[in-house]
């Protein structure tokens, strides 16, 4: 049966449970846009999915350079999907550099679509090919569809009279059209997006739409090799309700707005641009209709200081950065600890140290979050585990900050910030409000007054008559809040500040088991964005009847009160982390448990396989 015949018989399309597709091209080829549109179509189709945008730090690297390859991977399926997938089933390579850098991840027998027009001597040379890989047999292990995409695109957009430069730019939409044909996706949402994106340039919009349709038509009509067929990935079984896609960054932004509403406070978000954290600033800047003030400060220090100033004035101050920027904020965070003002510090972690790998992901700022300030400045540290989880964790950060009058560090990472997944849209009315009550009674007021239960310091806003007071970085008297250099008082204040944070353990949920049993041979303990990979690995191992469970930790400081006891119920503890072993040391020192590390710092998330292998070798050991 030819591909065309097969196409005409959709019922006969090959059914598969899940697929990993990767779009790869030059950083100027629009691969991220292609990927996000395909993601949307896939979500609307009803598959569960997870994505992994992987792009270089260079905005427009020289054309054809291997270091300039930008890729977007999506894993979608009919069953629960929690990672962007280990191996690629379908690779779209827009040029030789994209092919050479991504081929290693393609499964044997996988499908690879290449634009033969981009395989010029110059491009192949630059990518490091001495022979044309399409012709020399080096791709024999795969199913290759060589298409003269550039030529096809120019043909399809001819009626719009675009210059060659603009015409060629429609290449990504042509390719997207072909891939949409391959997976039976609806193009409507993409067409709407293009019309919106190029609203002021209707010619460009129409050309892109024509290219998209032409790519799709090519799939339907061209004599593709018989091994190329339309795949049918059945819809995933998910709880009923209204869904949308979200990246972690967007979910975080909305969560911060929600947190402000639940606290009945305006929020002031002050930030300085840094990859991969900036998108949070961008999203919040578009939400001026809410009680949200956004401020792009002159530097990281000014950003955190403006947030602290806003908190002093009675708003919820929030700042955001990535590791290097958080370093700069350190002194000011300690000021917020000393003055006991609410503050949220979002760290979208990236590969380090220093500039490191700005667009790649890592979890190596945990030590910084826990210990990276001068003096005894304990503060709550919480981490989001999935893109969707960023919403709830942001709300939780708001709650802790205002209920305990403390800075809170919220850890996300580059992967979560950019990756998207379907989101069962929450109803804000389902969340328990935690309204702030400001001091307003001068009777017996001092800025040192505390809630006897939570030990939270009183919050008195400027503008409140009779509560004029001064706070600052100098040690304060426990009773009056006045400057005090007394030695006993400093001991007491240090103890109180520490006790307040430790006491938060009484106000957070007990640690549960994400997958598996309470107790057993092995527990895999994770935090942050490793959730998806650990979850799938543990699930697969359990399907093979291995005695392994998954515990995933949101509250990294203070730790849940029952965590030590819970972990002691397992014979072995394995802690996978995208760092050289930071949380594993916390577990070891805190609970005197011989936890074993599993570390990866390649700038890429864990593959399910890597954790599965570690579980098996741990159990065999």
């Amino acid at each position, binding site marked *: 049966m030819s591909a065309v015949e097969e196409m005409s018989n959709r019922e006969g399309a090959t059914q598969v449970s899940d697929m990993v597709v990767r779009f790869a091209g030059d950083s100027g080829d629009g691969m991220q846009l292609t990927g996000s549109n395909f993601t*949307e179509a896939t*979500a*609307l189709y*009803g598959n569960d999915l997870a994505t992994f945008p992987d792009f270089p730090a260079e905005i427009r690297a020289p054309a054809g350079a291997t270091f300039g390859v930008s890729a977007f991977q999506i894993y979608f399926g009919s069953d629960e999907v929690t990672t962007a997938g280990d191996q690629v089933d379908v690779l779209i390579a827009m040029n030789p550099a994209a092919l050479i850098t991504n081929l290693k991840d393609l499964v044997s027998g996988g499908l690879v679509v290449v634009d033969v027009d981009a395989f010029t001597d110059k491009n192949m040379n630059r990518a490091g090919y001495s022979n044309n890989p399409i012709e020399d047999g080096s791709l024999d292990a795969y199913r290759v569809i060589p298409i003269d995409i550039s030529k096809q695109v120019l043909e399809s957009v001819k009626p719009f009279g675009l210059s060659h430069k603009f015409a060629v730019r429609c290449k990504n939409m042509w390719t997207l059209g072909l891939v949409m044909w391959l997976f039976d996706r609806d193009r409507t949402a993409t067409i709407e997006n293009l019309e919106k994106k190029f609203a002021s340039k209707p010619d460009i919009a129409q050309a892109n739409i024509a290219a998209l349709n032409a790519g799709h038509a090519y799939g339907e009509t061209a004599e593709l090799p018989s091994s190329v067929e339309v795949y049918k990935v059945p819809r995933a079984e998910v*709880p*009923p*309700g*209204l*869904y*949308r896609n979200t990246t972690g960054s967007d979910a975080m932004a*909305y969560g911060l*707005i*929600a947190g402000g509403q639940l606290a009945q406070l305006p929020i*002031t978000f002050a930030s300085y641009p840094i990859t991969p954290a900036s998108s949070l600033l961008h999203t919040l800047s578009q*939400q*001026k*209709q*809410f*009680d949200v*003030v956004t*401020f792009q*400060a*002159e*530097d990281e*220090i*000014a*950003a955190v*200081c*403006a*947030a*602290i*100033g*806003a*908190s*002093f*004035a*009675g708003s919820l*101050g929030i700042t955001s950065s990535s590791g290097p920027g958080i370093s700069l904020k350190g*002194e000011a965070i300690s*000021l917020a600890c000393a*003055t006991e003002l609410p503050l949220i510090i979002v760290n979208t972690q990236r590969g380090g140290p220093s500039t490191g790998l700005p667009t790649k992901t890592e979890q190596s700022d945990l030590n910084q979050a826990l210990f990276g300030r001068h003096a005894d400045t304990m503060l709550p540290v919480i981490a989001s585990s999935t893109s969707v989880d960023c919403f709830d964790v942001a709300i939780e950060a708001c709650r802790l900050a205002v209920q305990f009058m403390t800075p809170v560090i919220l850890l996300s990472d580059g992967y979560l910030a950019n990756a998207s997944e379907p989101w069962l*849209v*929450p*109803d*804000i*009315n389902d969340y328990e409000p935690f309204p702030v009550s400001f001091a307003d009674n001068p009777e017996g007021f001092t800025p040192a007054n505390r809630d006897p239960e939570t030990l939270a310091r009183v919050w008195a806003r*400027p*503008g*409140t*008559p*009779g509560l*004029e*007071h*001064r*706070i*600052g*970085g*100098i040690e304060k008297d426990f009773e009056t809040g*006045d*400057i005090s250099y007394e030695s006993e008082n400093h001991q007491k204040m240090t103890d109180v500040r520490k006790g307040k944070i430790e006491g938060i353990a009484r106000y957070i949920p007990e640690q549960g088991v994400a997958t598996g049993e309470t107790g057993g041979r092995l527990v895999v303990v994770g935090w942050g964005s490793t959730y998806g990979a650990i979850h799938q690995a543990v699930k697969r191992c359990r399907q093979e009847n291995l005695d392994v469970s998954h515990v995933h930790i949101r509250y990294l400081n203070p730790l849940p009160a029952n965590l030590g006891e819970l972990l002691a119920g397992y014979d072995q503890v394995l802690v996978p982390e995208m760092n050289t072993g930071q949380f594993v040391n916390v577990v070891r020192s805190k609970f005197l448990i011989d936890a074993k590390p599993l570390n990866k710092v390649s700038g890429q998330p864990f593959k399910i396989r890597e954790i599965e292998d570690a579980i098996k070798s741990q159990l065999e050991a």
Partner: protein
Amino acid sequence: MNAPVENLTARDFASDQEVRWCPGCGDYAILKTMQKTMPELGVARENQVFVSGIGCSSRFPYYMNTYGFHTIHGRAPSIATGVKLANPELDVWVITGDGDGLSIGGNHMIHVLRRNVDLQLLLFNNEIYGLTKGQYSPTSKVGTRSPSTPDGSVDMPLLPCVFALGAGARFVARTIDTEAKHMGPVLKRAHAHKGTAFVEIYQNCPVYNDGIFDQIKEKKTAADTRLVLEHGKPLTFGADQEKGIRLNRKTLMPEVVTISEDGVTEDDIVVHDETNKVLAQMLAGLKLPDFPEPVGVLYCEPTAPSYTDDFYQQRILVREQKGEADLNALLRTGHTWSVS
């Protein structure tokens, strides 16, 4: 409960804290003038906020019976910006010094002035680091001997008012710690200005840099060393106002001339126009021994919108366009799908 604004006195603005500056410090005089001026501003005590960084001057908020925040070194302008963003109704004063504001906090100083955040920024300039025991500062004269420059400093100082104008300040003034009669009106002008009002205060440090402004402060020399600026009045000085500043038409440089000598008449003397930025930049650069040093309002551009006003104006416009904020609705915008 607080007394009505009109009944407040200087005493109402003094906190119960023991003042801890060295005896003879110029900061005492500034504090006193500030406390005396506050009741005249017509602002309720609870709406006044003093924000400072680190250094001797930065202890100032502790002694004011208003809201106050003693923060970290150099960052007061940023904290104050946050206060103002969160609540534009508050009246915010930043207290800083030459080290705090121009060295470690130089970047924030540039940006608060550039943005024109609606606040008053008082820079106590004593040309030395006091609290860390006497190291030279970015405003110390070349050759200043200090613990860190025992053989004399070799780097050029910067002039605060030149710096402020360069950063785009729309209000720049200078006054002197012990000159309450001069300082009071300058503080009031600064307060009345919408936007960042930058005031340099010559402040004596009796311990580490004693007497550096004596020539300008002492009665017997002040007439020749101090150029008192008044809008619309010629730039004259001297015991009988017989000297003045003239602009040399060939070199475009200011020069000191004596009226009635060499054919100089009063018409040759530059008339102060505080809305003239070019003139302000020239005045800000005048230094002894070649020129008398100007005090008063060097520059005031009263019509420039403040950052705070523009910021909130933009918010109002956006809200008019976008309508009522509804988070549930926002979460449901864009492409969504239902699973039943």
